C-alpha cells in the first residue's frame, strides 16, 4: 500500500501521542481527549460539507452514540469501553441508514432544517424520559477495555489510548476514502449534481452513504465523549451543540482530515481559557471569529497552511 503524506503523518502522530502519554499532565490529556472526540464528530461534518451539505442536527448522532454507550453501561451492566464505542457506532449507523433514505432527497437549508427537526425529536424524547434521567441525564463509568479491567491510572491511559487510536483511525480511513474514486464524488456532487448523474453515478446513493459515514463518526465521537466525561445529558442533541460542530467545521475548513482535528483542538483550547477568564464573552468571540473566517478565509484555517501548494 502506497501511503500519502497525510496517512504517514497520522501514523506518526498516533505513535507520538501514545508514547508521550505517561509524560502528559492531566489537563493536557483531558484537553486532548475532548478535542479528539469533537474532532471525530467534525470529521463527519467535513465529509458532508465536501458533499455540499451542512447538517444543523448532527448532535442527534453525537447524543445517540453517547446514550448507546451509556445504555451498555447502565442497562446491560457491561461497562466495557470497546463495547460502548461499538454500540455507539452501531446505533448511529442503523438510525442514519433509515433517516438517510429521507434526508438524501434534501439539499441546502431543507437538509439543514430536517436534520435539525430529527435532532430535536430526540431532545424532546430524552428530556421527558425519566428512565434516562430526563434533563439531568446520567453518569456512566467504563471499567474495562476488551474485558481487561482498568482502574485509576490504567483507566486514564486506556481512555486516552482508545480516544487517540479511534480518532486517528477514523481520520486515516476517511483520508483514504476521500482520495478514492468514490470519495472524489463528494466535491463533484457539491459542484454539479446534474453532471454527476450524467456521468453515470448516483447522487442519492453517494449522499446516503456519506450521511451514514458522518453519522457513525459522530456516534463514535459521542461514545468516546461519554467515556471521557463520565456523564451524558440531552444537551448533546440540543441545537446549539450541533451549531458548535458546524462552527468548528467552518473554522477548520475541509481541505484535509487534519483540519477538523486541529480545528477542534484550537476550539477547545480557546474555550478552556475563555471559560476561565471571560465566561460572558466566549460566544461573542466565537461569533466574531466565525464571521471573520467566513468573510476572509472561506477555506478555513487549513487554507492558511496550504499556500505552498503548487499552482
Amino acid at each position, binding site marked *: 500500500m502506497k501511503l500519502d503524506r497525510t496517512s504517514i503523518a497520522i501514523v506518526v502522530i498516533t505513535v507520538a501521542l501514545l508514547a508521550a502519554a505517561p509524560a502528559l499532565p492531566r489537563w493536557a490529556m483531558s484537553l486532548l481527549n475532548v478535542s479528539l472526540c469533537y474532532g471525530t464528530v467534525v470529521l463527519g461534518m467535513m465529509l458532508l460539507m465536501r458533499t455540499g451539505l451542512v447538517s444543523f442536527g448532527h448532535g442527534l448522532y453525537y447524543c445517540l452514540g453517547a446514550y448507546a454507550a451509556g445504555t451498555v453501561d447502565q442497562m446491560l451492566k457491561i461497562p466495557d469501553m470497546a463495547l460502548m464505542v461499538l454500540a455507539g457506532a452501531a446505533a448511529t449507523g442503523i438510525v442514519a441508514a433509515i433517516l438517510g433514505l429521507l434526508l438524501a432527497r434534501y439539499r441546502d437549508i431543507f437538509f439543514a432544517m430536517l436534520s435539525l427537526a430529527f435532532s430535536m425529536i430526540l431532545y424532546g424524547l430524552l428530556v421527558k424520559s425519566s428512565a434516562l434521567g430526563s434533563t439531568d441525564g446520567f453518569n456512566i463509568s467504563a471499567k474495562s477495555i476488551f474485558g481487561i479491567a482498568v482502574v485509576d491510572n490504567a483507566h486514564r491511559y486506556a481512555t486516552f489510548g482508545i480516544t487517540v487510536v479511534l480518532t486517528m483511525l477514523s481520520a486515516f480511513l476517511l483520508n483514504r476514502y476521500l482520495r478514492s474514486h*468514490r470519495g472524489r464524488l463528494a466535491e463533484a456532487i457539491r459542484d454539479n449534481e446534474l453532471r454527476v448523474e450524467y*456521468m453515470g453515478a448516483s447522487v442519492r446513493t453517494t449522499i446516503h452513504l456519506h450521511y451514514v459515514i458522518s453519522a457513525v463518526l459522530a456516534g463514535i465521537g459521542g461514545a468516546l465523549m461519554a467515556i471521557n466525561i463520565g456523564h451524558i445529558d440531552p444537551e448533546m442533541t440540543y441545537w446549539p451543540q450541533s451549531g458548535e460542530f458546524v462552527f468548528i467545521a467552518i473554522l477548520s475548513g475541509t481541505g484535509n482530515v487534519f483540519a477538523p482535528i486541529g480545528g477542534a483542538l484550537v476550539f477547545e483550547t480557546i474555550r478552556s481559557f475563555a471559560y476561565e477568564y471571560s465566561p460572558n464573552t466566549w460566544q461573542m468571540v466565537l461569533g466574531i471569529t466565525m464571521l471573520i473566517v467566513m468573510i476572509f478565509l472561506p477555506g478555513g484555517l487549513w487554507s492558511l497552511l496550504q499556500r505552498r501548494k503548487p499552482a
Partner: protein
Amino acid sequence: MATILHAKGLNKSFGAVTAANDINVAVEQDSVVGLIGSNGAGKTTFINMVTGYLKPTTGSIHFEGRDITSLKPRQITQLGICRSFQIPQLYNTMTVAENLMVGVGIVASSGARWAKSNRLDVAPEQAVEAMLEQFGLGDYRNRQSGLLPEGTRKLLDIAMAMVVRPRILLLDEPTSGVSADEKFVLMDRVMAAVREGKVTVLFVEHDMEVVERYTHRILAFYEGRIIADGEPAKVLDDVEVRKYVIGEAH
C-alpha cells in the same frame, strides 16, 4: 448499417404546449445527425427524452434493441449514451484534469450494470491524459474550470461527455457561445475524437455552416414535429425547412 437508436411515436406535452409530436427516428450506427429548428421546435426536448431527463408522454426509445424509455439519466449513461450541455455543466471548483478524473473514476469503479464497451482499458491517469490530449486541453490541465473562457468550457463539457466512453454522443448546441474562428477548431477536435471512438453523434445546432460541414443527415424540427429528414443538401433545400427553420435561424 445497423440501427443503434430508435425513437418510436414520441409525444411530449407541457400543459398546452406540444414539445414533441409523433417523433419517429431510426439512427444508424456511426452516423452524424444534425438536429435543426428554431427555438422551441423540440430539438432539446428530443435530446432530453433520449437521455432520460424527460419522460415522453407516449412512445418509446430503444437503444441497441433495448427499451430505455423509463430509465434514469445515469442508467442511460451506463448503457452508453451521454450528452453535452448548451450551458457547460462543469465542476467549477475543480481543475480541468480533475473534472475529467471524476468521470474516469466513475467508469473505473463501475459495476456490472455498465455496458462492456465503456470499461476502462488503461490506468485512470492515462485515460485523463489521453482525453486532455485529444481535446487540446493539455495546457489547461491545472486551471480551475470555473475560470476558463467560454470556448474552452464548451470543449471541456464535451470532453466530460466523451470521458465516460459512450456509444452515442448527444451535443446540445456545441458551438453556441464560441467565437466564429474557434467553432471549426472545436468541431474538428470533437469529430476526430468521435471517429476514433466509433461514436454515433446527434447534435443540435443553429449554425448551418457547421451543420452542413459535419453531418451525414439532418432532422428538421418545427413545432414538435420532424418536417424534413434526409441528406443535408436535400433537407437544407426543402421549401418548408427554408421557410420555417432557416428563415428564422438567420
